[in-house]
């Protein structure tokens, strides 16, 4: 069934959709400032749509500079009391938030899938458990900061301005808010304009947890609101996850101020498969590396470096595996590949893949039928790619894998490092000494061995080069919110 479409199987799985009625979506939402939902000062609103159906889900307030100022003032005011609380008291709130997230995880998983387009399998089995785990993990640190390795009584920075992307809306919120609150900071967070709903749901979770007013403020809006937040003179710390272009703009914007910053930016992760790799598991790892969340992952293993001697074998196994991927309704529990987050993103992916073809890389597309509405892109491979091709250099941020070959471990390392990015890498080999030797030479924040895209709150995450600076997660993630 490699090239011709397979006949309808007798064992076609019947649809198994998760009910969307488990979550209530209001027709409109305001900004969450100082514990209250309020309209934007300018009265502006925008719509958020479901990427799989293009259905309008809700209308949310569009924050402007005036709203940013109000939110930062609220956070500043709340900071006095919040930072003065004993760590064990802050921990109680964080544990409570974590438990509420667990209790309401089905609602949140459905909401995230509707707003983002990723499959319910991922929101249910990956995003939500990790979100809760991050709050639990940093709740545990809140009363142990004296023992984090930064000396006695390390102090919080103040007000954190946080801007997060649309690929993991709730998980990125957790990565940002949990360590900030644990260390005694207060936050103003701006979710991406295409995925505001789970952050607004989180505002409700904060109220349910009885979190003091102003400790968490959520401003929905566009880049102008993000820029106003980052540039606000009373913001002490900027945390951003998103594209390298915006990251650079932020770095320029805050240069010369005393704001601290962590930037988690783009990537072009190398996934290196040696000739002695466990082939079947490597294929699974390649699939997880680039087709998880439709490839819209900054640490995606989007460059497959495969040893020449096993290239044909690995590619054959990979293509065979990709023909079994199920693309479609993200709310169906059997869906592996959901929708691309927005029309703009789909256009970007399409343009970059056209460049790949024009430059002579060979394109192969998995035989998936694409739904007629919504934003979809079938899993795609480029073979015959070299370092000189655009698809080997630029981050595509979609389900597109570029396949390159190498002959020796040194060549693999040289090619893996020959990138303006350095966020993640993977090594596949049965030889333990090779894992250690190669991992030491890779310029990447995370190196996975015989696995890919595995996350854990205890493990620091961050990049080299244009993938940004600073670390989130683990004990290292505390440092970014402490005056040390």
């Amino acid at each position, binding site marked *: *069934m*490699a090239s011709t479409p*397979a006949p309808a*199987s*007798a*064992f*076609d*799985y*019947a*649809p*198994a959709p998760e009910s969307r009625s488990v979550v209530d979506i209001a027709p409109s939402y305001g900004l969450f400032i100082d514990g209250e939902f309020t309209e934007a000062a300018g009265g502006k609103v925008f719509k958020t749509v479901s990427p799989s159906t293009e259905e309008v889900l809700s209308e949310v307030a569009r924050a402007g500079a005036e709203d940013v100022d109000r939110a930062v003032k609220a956070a500043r005011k709340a900071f006095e009391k919040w930072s003065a609380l004993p760590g064990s008291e802050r921990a109680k709130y964080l544990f409570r938030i974590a438990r509420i997230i667990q209790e309401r995880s089905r609602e949140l998983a459905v909401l995230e899938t509707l707003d983002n387009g990723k499959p319910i*399998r991922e929101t249910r*089995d990956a995003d939500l458990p990790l979100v809760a785990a991050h709050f639990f993990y940093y709740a545990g640190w809140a009363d142990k900061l004296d023992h984090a390795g930064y000396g006695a009584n390390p102090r919080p920075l103040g007000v954190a301005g946080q801007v997060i992307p649309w690929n993991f809306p709730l998980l990125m919120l957790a990565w940002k808010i949990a360590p900030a609150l644990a260390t005694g900071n207060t936050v103003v967070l701006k979710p991406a304009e295409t995925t505001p709903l789970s952050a607004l749901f989180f505002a409700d979770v904060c109220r349910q947890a009885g979190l003091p007013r102003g400790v968490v403020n959520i401003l929905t809006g566009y880049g102008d609101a993000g820029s106003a937040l980052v540039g606000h003179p009373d913001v002490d710390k900027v945390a951003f996850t998103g594209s390298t272009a915006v990251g650079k703009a932020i770095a320029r914007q805050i240069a010369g101020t005393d704001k601290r910053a962590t930037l988690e930016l783009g990537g072009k992760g190398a996934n290196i498969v040696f000739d*002695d*790799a*466990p*082939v*079947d*598991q490597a294929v*699974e*790892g390649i699939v997880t590396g680039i087709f998880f969340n439709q490839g819209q992952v900054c640490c995606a293993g989007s460059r497959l470096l495969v040893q020449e001697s096993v290239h*044909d*074998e690995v590619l*054959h196994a990979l293509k065979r595996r990709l023909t*079994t991927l199920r693309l479609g309704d993200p709310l169906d*529990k*059997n869906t592996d590949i959901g929708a691309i987050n927005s029309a703009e993103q789909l256009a970007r992916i399409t343009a970059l893949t056209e460049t790949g073809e024009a430059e002579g890389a060979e394109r192969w597309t998995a035989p998936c039928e694409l739904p007629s509405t919504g934003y979809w892109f079938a899993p795609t491979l480029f073979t015959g790619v070299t370092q000189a091709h655009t698809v080997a250099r630029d981050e595509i941020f979609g389900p597109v894998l570029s396949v390159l070959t190498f002959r020796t471990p040194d060549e693999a390392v040289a090619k893996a490092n020959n990138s303006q990015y350095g966020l993640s890498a993977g090594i596949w080999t*049965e030889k333990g000494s090779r894992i250690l030797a190669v991992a030491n030479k890779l310029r990447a924040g995370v190196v996975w061995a*015989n*696995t890919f895209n595995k996350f854990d709150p205890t493990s620091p995450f961050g990049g080299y080069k244009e993938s940004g600076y600073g670390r989130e997660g683990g004990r290292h993630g505390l440092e970014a919110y402490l005056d040390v």
Partner: protein
Amino acid sequence: MPTTAPSSEPSTASARGAGSLADVTGSDSALRRFLHGLPGVDAVGLEARAAALGTRSIKTTAKAYAIDLAISMIDLTTLEGADTPGKVRALAAKAVHPDPTDRTTPRTAAVCVYPDMARTAVAALAGSGVKVASVATAFPAGRAALDVKLADVRDAVAAGADEIDMVIDRGAFLSGRYLKVYEEIVAVKTECGPARLKVIFETGELSTYDNIRRASWLGMLAGADFIKTSTGKVATNATPANTLLMLEAVRDYREQTGVQIGVKPAGGIRTSKDAIKFLVLVNETAGEDWLDNRWFRFGASSLLNDLLMQRQKLSTGRYSGPDYVTVD
């Protein structure tokens, strides 16, 4: 059913391909080199994949189809020291009419008995289309001289068994005497005549996934028609992970040789939910060509009643209970 399919990418066959397969069984060292040259198995990754496939949600028409398919794949088994002709005849009757209240219920694939019961089973199943499988070769330990094992097989075949389930010499395998294991399988296969040969690895005793992959290839090279996880007599029997691994092996073997081999997980599969998870593994690993009782079997006895109760639930909308299925 297609019995063979051409390799879609012959280039992958060079290293471990059809041409070299005949050579690798020439000596113990050649066989060892070949088996140890197979790609390794990462245990964490294998189990994660098996678990992920276990989360497929199978509902309505797909579930009805899967339940009937699973029933038709069962080797209804009794392997007790206390087996009597009466017990075997009762089992045979159940294999032919699993649910006396619903004659649309498919028959099981086979009835599986010890060799001394094969004649009774053959008589009871005459004309039904249900096969008789017999566990020969000093089952379940396999600790007997080769001529004793071969005599055991001859006995079962003479009694009319359609299928022979043999155990491999795990001791020889674990001590690296692969050629001995290979030659035993070849000898048994010869003795089988027209009967199909299922080779049981007892994966729980082989212990590592690398060993299970090597045993799978060894069995296929030696002429197994089926490769089977286990006897059902040890602590660890069929698991989603070891079955997934064996499905990968038969898939790869067919791509390289064009020869299709069946897979039979045995022992410990008791519920419809578990059985459906195994069918998902078949569907998404080896492919739909294996979704047929010629190529996939369940070695199970208690599984059948749970499938029947689920089947009744689908047709009536209500759960019945253990008294609505037969105890045989």
